[in-house]
């Protein structure tokens, strides 16, 4: 199987300070990978690099011919203006962008897919609700419906289950499992090791550098987790240029 995603000695960061340092490795097509690590380990930075929001300071990220705009990306802190007068239906329809582009109409068939997506995430009946009235969990369900419509080969989820109740979390995990079954490649940053162990066959443990990457049980060992915690040292203002 070929790699959907290839990290070639990639370093990502801000103002020349690396947040992810010299990462190598492949994500196989159809893999379901959890990315875990303490706060500040570089998980979000890595994802920003993958979707092309952040240019690598060094090295490269190969997407196997995929256009970065074809990646479905759920950022950790979505910049959604919740006071904006738009309803759930229109918000979810945005997921059709790749099909409709600037002008394409939303016909009967597309309407049907939007309705199905809403049904899948359990938001039937919420079509006309404005987004400002949704709870945190409902908002997350709505964003997952939009991800569904994006119909992407690579899906990148940055801490999708933060501050979400157990029921919502397990509903949304069901979707992740479905994507995996459809041979889509899924990357998700997570903090709950139980969720990782029960749902994600593969794990990358990150602490600015790769601590371990492989089958989940072999990665999430007490030894590795301790190592990760120690390695997350602070951002050094006085750091010297890295020659590695």
């Amino acid at each position: 199987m070929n790699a959907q995603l290839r990290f070639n000695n990639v370093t990502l960061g801000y103002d020349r300070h690396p947040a992810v340092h010299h990462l190598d490795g492949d994500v196989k097509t159809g893999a379901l990978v959890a990315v875990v690590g303490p706060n500040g380990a570089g998980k979000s930075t890595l994802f920003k690099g993958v979707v092309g929001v952040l240019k690598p300071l060094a090295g490269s990220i190969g997407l196997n011919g995929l256009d970065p705009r074809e990646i479905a990306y759920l950022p950790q802190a979505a910049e959604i203006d919740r006071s904006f007068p738009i309803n759930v239906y229109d918000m979810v329809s945005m997921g059709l962008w790749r099909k409709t582009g600037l002008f394409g109409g939303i016909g009967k068939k597309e309407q049907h897919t939007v309705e199905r997506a809403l049904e899948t995430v359990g938001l039937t009946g919420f079509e006309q609700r404005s987004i400002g009235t949704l709870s945190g969990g409902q908002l997350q369900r709505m964003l997952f419906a939009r991800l569904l419509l994006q119909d992407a080969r690579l899906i990148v989820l940055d801490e999708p289950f933060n501050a979400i109740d157990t029921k919502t979390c397990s509903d949304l995990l069901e979707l992740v499992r479905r994507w995996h079954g459809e041979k889509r490649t899924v990357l998700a940053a997570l903090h709950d090791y139980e969720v990782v162990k029960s749902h994600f066959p593969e794990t990358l443990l990150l602490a600015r550098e790769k601590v371990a990457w492989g089958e989940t049980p072999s990665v999430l060992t007490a030894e590795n987790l301790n190592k990760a915690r120690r390695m997350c040292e602070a951002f050094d203002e006085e750091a010297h240029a890295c020659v590695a």
Partner: protein
Amino acid sequence: MLYDTLVAPFVEFEFMRRALVGVWGLALGAGPIGVFLMLRRMSLVGDAMAHAILPGAAIGFLVSGLSLLAMSTGGMIAGFLIALLAGLVARTTELKEDASLAVFFLISLAIGVTIVSLKGTNIDLLHFLFGSVLALDDHTLMLMAGSATVTLAVLALIYRPLVIECVDPGYLRSVSWAGTPVHLLFLALVVINLVSGFQALGTLLAVGIMMVPAAIGRFWARDITTMIAVAVASGMISGYAGLILSYQSGIPSGPAVILVAGILYALSLAFGSVGGLVRQLFPGRHLEA
């Protein structure tokens, strides 16, 4: 009697008919632009932009006198330049849009005043500030109609990305490169509408017919389409009623239009169906579910 007050001025005088068409054209273009500015929390951007346009128009005046073409061209060039620079700086650096716009419009204003004073002409900037809606010639009317047409056509083209860019800019960035060009196009529309408005209402009031109707719309609608419709309608009503008020009372026409819009705003603030004060004070019993 009612006919004499409400209709006769327009039947009798051509300049009143021209003024009405002009103001309605303005309301048609500026209404939706104002709604988007408000929803993007850029309500004061119109004001800043108007200041940026002023020196361009003044320079146009210095070069070729009181010529509509020269002043409009000068204003548009200054406005586009400032919008482009501010937009690019905001998108490529840490500086936010309002801060970079503030910097550029102040520089523009300073340059404008410097040029005017070096030339030694004491031109009447008040003319630009308050306009002359009752003296619209054919060229001015064409400019206003043209800018309303361009505004509506371009808005129709960029409507979808513009809405997405307002509500979830991160999402638009992740699926398309359209964000920046769409934003700059939108700023260009703001400039076009201000330039077309300052002929009739002056720079300051041109901002008024953009922003006040938009704020009115917010009190009556929960979705953006209705909001735009309410904004355009209230802009047109203000234009008509303002002209009547000005005709009957002798108040200058530009301020009269904005005053009427202000009254509509006060009424909406009090009685608006979405978040109006009366609704807030007397919400009725809470519902069962």
